[in-house]
């Protein structure tokens, strides 16, 4: 299932380099930024875990709200890492464990009737792990009497290679904290009661198992982010992977990450498709209605990588050599143009944020059928992402990272993977 991007550097080598910034400097700083972002993600995930422990020990509405806020805070640094996903195989092979989306939440817990009972794509659409100690999946009996990290990550996550069998990660935690958003394209997010975790006065059954599930999820998230942070250490594999290839190839990886996040992933899969369906489930954070921030920080991720700047969760900032410097050395107008495109992208994202935060109109209301104003706001974001993609493509041309080829498909790399 994994497609690995390999960007082979072009044959024409750049003839001149800006005096003060070398490609190697840019690559080093790119890795440093990644380390800082994953470290911040880890710190905020630990805070989330603490608040979840408090919630489970004392399932009050106030503690549930605190956990929800901790989840939202943890999303900000993580979303800013997403420009590292495409291009760095080590990140891409891993990210599904923490940010897989969309998910068939019926795999995990109870759902409303409107969710439906079956799916062409997923036979385990309503398996409900929390309610079932013994699961029979794909003809196999699975003992789910103890809910722990291994059960979720080793057995259930992406069961049968079905992508929507998401048993772990941010969105599973989001579902556990908010529950389904049953408001359609009307106002409001999911409204899971805190008593769903109350073992004494349990609502909706199996509160002990639900609490165990939530705890296991946050523990897993910490494990995974800890691992990924380490990969960007000075001796980590992600950093070493970048250093192992020639500098042009590593720089091409940086561009691939930005371009693919902006184009196919964010503009296409996460935004435009949802608008075309006018479907409130088609928003990235569909339980919490936090989508505006997720999109905003994804865009920020692209801008961070391009400019080499990142503001940490403690407010300090990191600045350093970036691909922007490399382009500016060759064609300063082109660099300005790319920055301008990215500024526009951030401004359009800000419109989504303002709608949700200031006008109380969440993303899932903007995409409702007949909401022409909302549709315009979302399409403006899509257009700005496409413009950013064009800028990125231009940057690739200016640096002459003409790719001979990539090959990303299983069918060529490993034909034996399919039997």
């Amino acid at each position: 299932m994994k497609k690995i991007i390999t960007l082979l550097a072009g044959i024409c080598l750049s003839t001149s380099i800006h005096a003060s910034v070398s490609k190697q400097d840019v690559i080093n700083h790119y890795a440093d930024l990644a380390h800082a972002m994953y470290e911040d993600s880890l710190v905020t995930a630990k805070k989330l875990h603490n608040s979840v422990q408090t919630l489970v020990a004392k399932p009050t509405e106030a503690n549930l709200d605190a956990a929800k806020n901790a989840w939202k805070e943890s999303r900000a640094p993580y979303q800013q890492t997403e420009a590292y996903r495409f291009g760095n195989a080590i990140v891409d092979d891993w990210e599904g464990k923490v940010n897989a989306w969309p998910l068939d939440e019926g795999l995990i817990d109870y759902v409303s009737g409107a969710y439906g009972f079956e799916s062409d794509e997923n036979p385990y659409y309503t398996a409900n792990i929390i309610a079932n100690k013994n699961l029979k999946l794909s003809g196999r009996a699975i003992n789910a009497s103890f809910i722990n990290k291994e059960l979720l990550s080793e057995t259930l996550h992406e069961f049968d290679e079905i992508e929507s069998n998401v048993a772990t990660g941010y969105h599973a935690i989001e579902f556990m904290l908010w529950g389904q958003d049953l408001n359609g394209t009307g106002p409001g997010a999911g409204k899971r009661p805190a008593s769903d975790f109350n073992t004494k006065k349990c609502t909706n059954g199996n509160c002990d198992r639900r609490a165990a599930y939530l705890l296991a999820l946050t523990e897993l998230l910490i494990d995974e982010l800890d691992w990924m942070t380490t990969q960007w250490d000075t001796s980590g594999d992600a950093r070493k992977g970048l250093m192992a290839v020639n500098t042009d190839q590593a720089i091409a990886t940086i561009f691939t990450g930005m371009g693919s996040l902006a184009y196919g992933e964010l503009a296409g899969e996460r935004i435009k498709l949802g608008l075309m369906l006018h479907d409130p489930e088609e928003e990235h954070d569909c339980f919490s209605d936090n989508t505006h921030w997720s999109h905003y920080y994804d865009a920020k991720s692209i801008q961070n990588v391009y400019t080499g700047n990142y503001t940490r969760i403690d407010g300090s900032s990191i600045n350093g050599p970036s691909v922007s410097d490399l382009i500016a050395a060759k064609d300063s107008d082109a660099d300005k143009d790319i920055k301008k495109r990215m500024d526009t992208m951030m401004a359009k994202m800000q419109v989504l944020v303002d709608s949700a935060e200031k006008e109380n109109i969440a993303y899932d209301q903007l995409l409702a059928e007949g909401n022409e104003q909302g549709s315009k706001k979302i399409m403006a974001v899509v257009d700005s992402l496409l413009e950013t993609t064009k800028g990125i493509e231009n940057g690739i041309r200016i640096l002459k990272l003409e790719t001979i080829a990539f090959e990303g498909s299983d069918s060529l790399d490993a034909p034996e993977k399919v039997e």
Partner: protein
Amino acid sequence: MKNIIFILCFSMGCLYSSAQAQNDTAPEKKNTSQWNNAIVDKHIIPAYKALETSTQQLKQSSEDFCKKPDKQGFIQLQSAFINSLAKWQSIQHIRFGPIENSLRDFRYQLWPDKRGKVNKHLNKLLIAKDSKALQGDKFPHGSIAIQGFSALEMLLFNKDSSFQDFVTQGNSNYRCDVALAITNNLSRMSTGLVTDWAGDNNSFRNAIATAEQGNSYFENELEVSSNLLNNLSTQLILIVDYKLDRPLGKNIRKSIAKRAESWRSRQSLSNINNNLVALKALYETGFKPWLKNTQLKQQIDTSFAEIHTTMDNINKPLYEAVKDPSLRPVVLELRRKIAKLKQLCSVKLPAALDLPLGFNSLDGD
């Protein structure tokens, strides 16, 4: 989870950047206009016209059937569906131009539908029986999931579908209303495509014909060629990674036949065949004539021929073949051969033609 299908092939970067500065090093200037025009006139416009005719017939069949629903009319309607689907599959690969206007590409067919939206949205509509939602000024602006071939197939080919669903109590008449709304929508979109491509001086045909001087659509004629080449490559990726790999699964036990395109009408393989016939025509009309690498020419010809032979050896629908111990190996053989063609057309052909492919729209989760 991830389908990072990326093709970044900017081997022509130099050609797009300032030509003046690089005149001494640039390869001999080529003009691909005549080949682009040939593709438009001999391949694209005829295919859209055939789609228009077939969807008009489909609309007529649904009107005839809904006036007097009977078994014969239902069979006639199913067969009109299959005919229109074939015409759509023969032009599915063209992903730029008028097909992008008003989200037509998605409204014709939402597939792959990884989140089961067609089923969900169609059921919601059938339960609500909202006749306003079907009106001509509203339906095209609603969910794209219920406007095209995927939803119509679900109505006409569900396991227990019969003409009686359309007459008996319950959803009876509304079911016909939905079918009429979809066929009308398909027919109108197809007419729109033909008009937008070939209508008048502002047509897209004209934009391509004048690309050499640059216009609001294209910087130059090579950008048109790149788009067409990208479409050739993207369709092969779609066939291998989506139309075959997803239903095949990693092994026979993990195959998921319902992930095949058009599995309900059992047209999955026929779709692939129509795609390949169209891709071959695209290649032979617009790229082969100026491809100088004779070895690559030979390889691509052989590849198309081998695929054709293997395809003929699969005598059951893909829906059954992926789970059939004797046929699955043949499907895998087919997949290997199309994957080989995919590589030739996505890697070797752009290099040989010195054309960039650009980012690929199939990327994403």
